[in-house]
């Protein structure tokens, strides 16, 4: 017999993870009080298109909704949008809100995500942008016109996707990365090199092995970026895409264990009736034992579902969260798909296709075990190798059969 479920569940954060929790709870038959608090004024919307279809202008913001209004309505939520949680009292079990008042709970899910990291002193400088929210994306999109000189600081997925879109809009794009190659730490030299080649072919200038130091401005408007090696890149606009920091400030003093995010156990439980899901959750991965935090769209949804299930399972019946992470990226005509983890692996083996064709599947292994698979323009074939990642299979000849 399961213990009775908590009478009142509050979820703070109304993006993919928070939505995953409330949908998961209702799908599993939870009929109790369910409050969803989100600081943005919008119904839950999707972020991956912000650096893809929304940024190109192909989609309007009306296409970003994760669910239709009717589907949200059907969840029977006490929905508090445009409302920021500012403090947590785990003794009285209350979330305090910026508008005054508080929401009581028996179980709480922290799904407050992460905020874009800025370069010091650049907030409020005209022409300097981050890309995290719908408003960010619309503001940045307005800068993209033929001839505008754009410096993209950071060459992770977000920076690389934005660079590709900006080239499509006719901007003169320079991408700055402290790594040797854009996405080199994720993809390794062969695929990273292929991707860098595609950017260069499309006219992106890549400045690698150095960092952006300061943004130069005149009358409050960005004019360039000074690199730590002293060089100056002239710019009309700057996109800062150097990662994100988990939104845990409101939990200070609450007793919820904080480090790089909310430090949960393997079941995503942080103690005192508090759970975490999505970009903000830091948990020991059952297979590796090391703590990780994942900022990917699929992880947010899966963790939301897992937390919903674990809350309802009751004490002692919660199960560890053991995902095969998945992420995709669109750049020019390329679609990259990654299952598992590629960072820090020691071997890359291309098992289908070839980099020169820009169609391939590559296995990433560490200590002879498959940890990740990367596909370029071969989505269905790539999925076929996911099982090897799930099993951390030996990278032997059978792996490529």
């Amino acid at each position, binding site marked *: 017999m399961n213990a009775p479920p908590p009478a009142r569940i509050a979820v703070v954060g109304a993006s993919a993870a928070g939505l*995953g929790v409330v*949908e*998961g709870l209702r*799908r599993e038959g939870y009929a109790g009080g369910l409050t969803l608090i989100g600081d943005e004024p919008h119904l839950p919307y*999707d972020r*991956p298109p912000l650096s893809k279809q929304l940024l190109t202008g192909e989609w309007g913001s009306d*296409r970003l*909704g*994760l*669910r*239709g209004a009717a*589907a949200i309505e059907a969840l029977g939520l006490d929905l508090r949008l445009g409302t920021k949680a500012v403090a947590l009292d785990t003794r009285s079990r209350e979330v305090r809100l910026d508008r005054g008042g508080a929401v009581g709970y028996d179980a709480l899910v922290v799904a407050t995500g992460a905020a874009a990291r800025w370069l010091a002193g650049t907030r409020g400088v005209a022409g300097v942008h981050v890309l995290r929210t719908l408003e960010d994306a619309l503001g940045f999109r307005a800068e993209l016109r033929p001839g505008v000189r754009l410096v993209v600081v950071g060459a992770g997925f977000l920076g690389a996707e934005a660079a590709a879109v900006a080239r499509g809009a006719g901007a003169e794009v320079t991408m700055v990365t402290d790594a040797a190659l854009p996405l080199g730490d994720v993809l390794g030299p062969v695929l990273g090199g292929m991707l860098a080649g595609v950017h260069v072919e499309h006219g992106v200038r890549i400045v690698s092995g150095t960092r952006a130091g300061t943004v130069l401005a005149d009358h409050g408007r960005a004019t360039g970026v000074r690199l730590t090696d002293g060089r100056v890149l002239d710019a009309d606009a700057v996109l800062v895409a150097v990662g994100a920091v988990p939104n845990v400030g409101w939990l200070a003093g609450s007793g919820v264990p904080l480090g790089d995010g909310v430090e949960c156990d393997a079941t995503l439980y942080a103690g005192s009736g508090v759970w975490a899901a999505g970009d903000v959750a830091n948990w020991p991965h059952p297979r590796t034992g090391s703590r990780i935090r994942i900022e990917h*769209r*699929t992880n947010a*949804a*899966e963790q939301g*579902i897992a937390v919903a299930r674990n809350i309802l399972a009751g004490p002692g019946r919660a199960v560890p969260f053991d995902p095969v992470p*998945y992420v*995709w990226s*669109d750049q020019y005509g390329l*679609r990259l*798909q990654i299952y598992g983890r590629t960072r820090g692996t020691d071997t890359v083996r291309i098992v289908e296709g070839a980099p020169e064709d820009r169609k391939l599947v590559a296995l990433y292994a560490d200590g002879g075990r498959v940890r990740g698979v990367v596909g370029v323009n*071969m*989505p*269905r*074939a*790539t*999925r076929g190798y*996911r099982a090897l990642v799930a099993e951390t299979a030996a990278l032997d000849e059978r792996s490529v059969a």
Partner: protein
Amino acid sequence: MEISLDFDKCCGAGQCVLAAPEVFDQRDDDGVVVLLDADPPAEEYENVRRAAQVCPAAAIDVRP
């Protein structure tokens, strides 16, 4: 159960195929979702709802 797919949104993740392999597949060339069974039996409903929920592109809509 009514399943509608937004093929433009589909990113070829294949998460739906993993959740409900009897109902979804992917096209070979671009990985876009293929609906194998537009009117799946009741025992598939749970899998289909999960597929809709984990789809990273929110491309699957399920009613009721």
